[in-house]
């Protein structure tokens, strides 16, 4: 394992940024979110939870799919010569499709927590398994994930419930695992991509085998804290694959959805939500087709000519949690579409969240 002094992190960022786009937690106007690092940016790896998860790295909130440009083919007969004839000439236009750009350069996502890294796995199942989404795929192929262990988990965290280890990123699908131990960042490459990145920054790293025991201590410490967290014992016993009928028709939904504003906060901060909408924007001479995140909580989600297929907020509320806790596991070998990051617990304007939903059904028994 390698180490680098925390004081020297800015040089590390600069070094990475000299070869890659560096996507990492940046503090801006009082909030920490993932963003591209530059010399003026305020890097912030102390804040445990960025407001939005890092999923933008692979699935940005807005992404241009392609542009369509319309060009006019001049009429064969000049209008000024013979107006009558010109008027009868069919107008020819040409439509040119300019595809959006796939990511073709490696880039680095730095400081992703193990829960968010699991979020990538969740999205992989959606975007890479059956139908392969090339935009996503290109980003996944080129993204190098540097994961950071959760030094001080917070009360809203419950990743352990989903078998995620906040203490040890090396168990995740990340390319590099890191820890903060004392005043150092510990760096451990996990994959080939991780090794390649390590090679780039090697000059700044110190090979430090003495740190191993300290990392072990950090892992133990985090694990102990995690056990004490209020949600540590949340039970998923009653959820998962095959519970559709039982849960869908449960009366509990009609009670717990009340007060839900139908905003998209939970969806947009969630590391696993991956619904999007595709829209057109009229440009000067054509359209830009883009996709952007959408939320199943919105009243116009999947709006069709005949209206919404889930016209009530109850239905929409149920959909979101059924998807996370039942439908997705049913289709993905039991993997939940929730990683216990706790962002919705902290951010829901009405203090509703996935934990309360799980508990509501628990209390019923």
């Amino acid at each position: 394992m390698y180490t680098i002094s925390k004081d020297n992190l800015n040089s590390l960022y600069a070094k990475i940024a000299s070869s890659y786009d560096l996507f990492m937690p940046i503090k801006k106007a009082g909030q920490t979110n993932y963003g591209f690092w530059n010399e003026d940016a305020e890097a912030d790896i102390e804040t445990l939870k960025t407001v939005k998860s890092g999923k933008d790295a692979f699935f940005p909130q807005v992404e241009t799919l392609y542009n369509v440009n319309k060009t006019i083919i001049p009429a064969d007969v000049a209008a000024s010569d013979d107006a009558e004839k010109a008027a009868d000439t069919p107008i020819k236009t040409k439509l040119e499709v300019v595809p959006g750009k796939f990511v073709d350069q490696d880039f680095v996502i730095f400081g992703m927590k193990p829960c968010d890294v699991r979020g990538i796995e969740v999205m992989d199942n959606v975007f890479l398994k059956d139908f392969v989404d090339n935009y996503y795929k290109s980003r996944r192929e080129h993204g190098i994930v540097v994961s950071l262990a959760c030094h001080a988990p917070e009360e809203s965290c419950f990743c352990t419930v989903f078998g995620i280890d906040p203490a040890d990123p090396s168990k995740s699908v990340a390319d590099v695992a890191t820890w903060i131990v004392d005043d150092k960042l510990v760096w451990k490459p996990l994959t080939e991509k991780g090794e390649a990145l390590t090679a780039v920054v090697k000059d700044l790293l110190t090979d430090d085998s003495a740190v191993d025991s300290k990392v072990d201590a950090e892992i133990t410490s985090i694990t102990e804290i995690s056990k004490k967290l209020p949600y540590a014992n949340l039970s998923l016993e009653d959820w998962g694959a095959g519970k559709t009928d039982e849960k869908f028709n449960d009366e509990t939904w009609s009670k717990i959805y009340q007060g839900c504003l139908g905003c998209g906060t939970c969806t947009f901060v969630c590391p696993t939500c991956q619904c999007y909408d595709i829209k057109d924007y009229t440009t000067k001479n054509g359209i830009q087709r883009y996709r952007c995140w959408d939320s199943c909580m919105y009243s116009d989600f999947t709006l069709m000519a005949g209206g919404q297929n889930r016209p009530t907020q109850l239905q929409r509320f149920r959909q979101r949690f059924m998807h996370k806790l039942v439908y997705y596991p049913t289709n993905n070998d039991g993997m939940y579409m929730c990683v216990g990051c706790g962002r919705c617990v902290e951010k829901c304007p009405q203090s509703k969240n996935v934990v309360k939903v799980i508990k509501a059904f628990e209390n019923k028994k």
Partner: protein
Amino acid sequence: MQELKNRLIQLISDGTVARVIGWKKGDMPYNPEPACFSTVEELEDFVYDGFCGANLSKMMIEVANLEGKTAVCLKPCDTYSFNQLIREHRVNRENAYIIGVGCRGKLDIEKARKAGIKGIEAIEGVGIEGEGDVTFKTIYGDKAMAYSELLLDRCHVCKGKDHMVYDEVIGESKDTADSDRFDDVKKIEAMSSAEKFAYFQNELSKCIRCNACRNVCPACSCRKCVFDNTKFDSQQRANVDSFEEKMFHIIRAFHVAGRCTDCGECSRVCPQGIPLHLFNRKFIKDIDDFYGEFQAGKDPEAQSPLTDFTFEDLEPKQAVGRGEN
């Protein structure tokens, strides 16, 4: 709290009301949630403490046409919103039983988080007394902060302790205002054009277009928002570009100009901590300056400034550049 709870139980038991809109105990000490109670058993989970900041008046829209009366717990500032909803025929006053609940300022858990408090297991001192210290028991040790330090921003510009509309009042209220409502607006007004632009650009670039500000707003109660319908080719499109955000936020604030009671919910719920109330409050300040003081929701009969005029109103060109010269 117990008095309030007992009264609610009584109202349900004697059939005065069919349901109660209030707050339900959370699973964390700081996250009670707005809820609808229809039985005495459900009311067991009723709670009213310093974290019950949510304005429940908007929930009354949905129950306006239900059978039986609905009791709703409204803090003094929430009653302005309710009045405004009465004015706009969105709620049914006859069908509502308004319990004016005492309020001595509500708390913002973000203030504690900003102060580095995390791993909260229990919180003491968040009762309705609204005084003294709040003690946080966390897995990283105990921490204390003054109740006043934890107040929501809006409580520092409290509109007063009086309920504008109610059937009965339970509990004492306190005016927690300790700063001028327009200070922040004035600060921005004093900036240069470029500074203003940079300030809002910085703040608004955080916007994720989650629509929480809109959906929580009691004035933004449209059945279908202009940003969701097809009438203006302006369907919500996430944060497509920076203009999109500005367009959304200008129009959001504009549509509630003269109707916004300054309840501060928009800023309270913004996951990105954008001070959205600065838009609304700018309109309020301008309306006060241009057309005379107006507090939406104070009087449900009062004509909204944007559906009113006088022959001598100031000209748009007089509305700008006032800071110059």
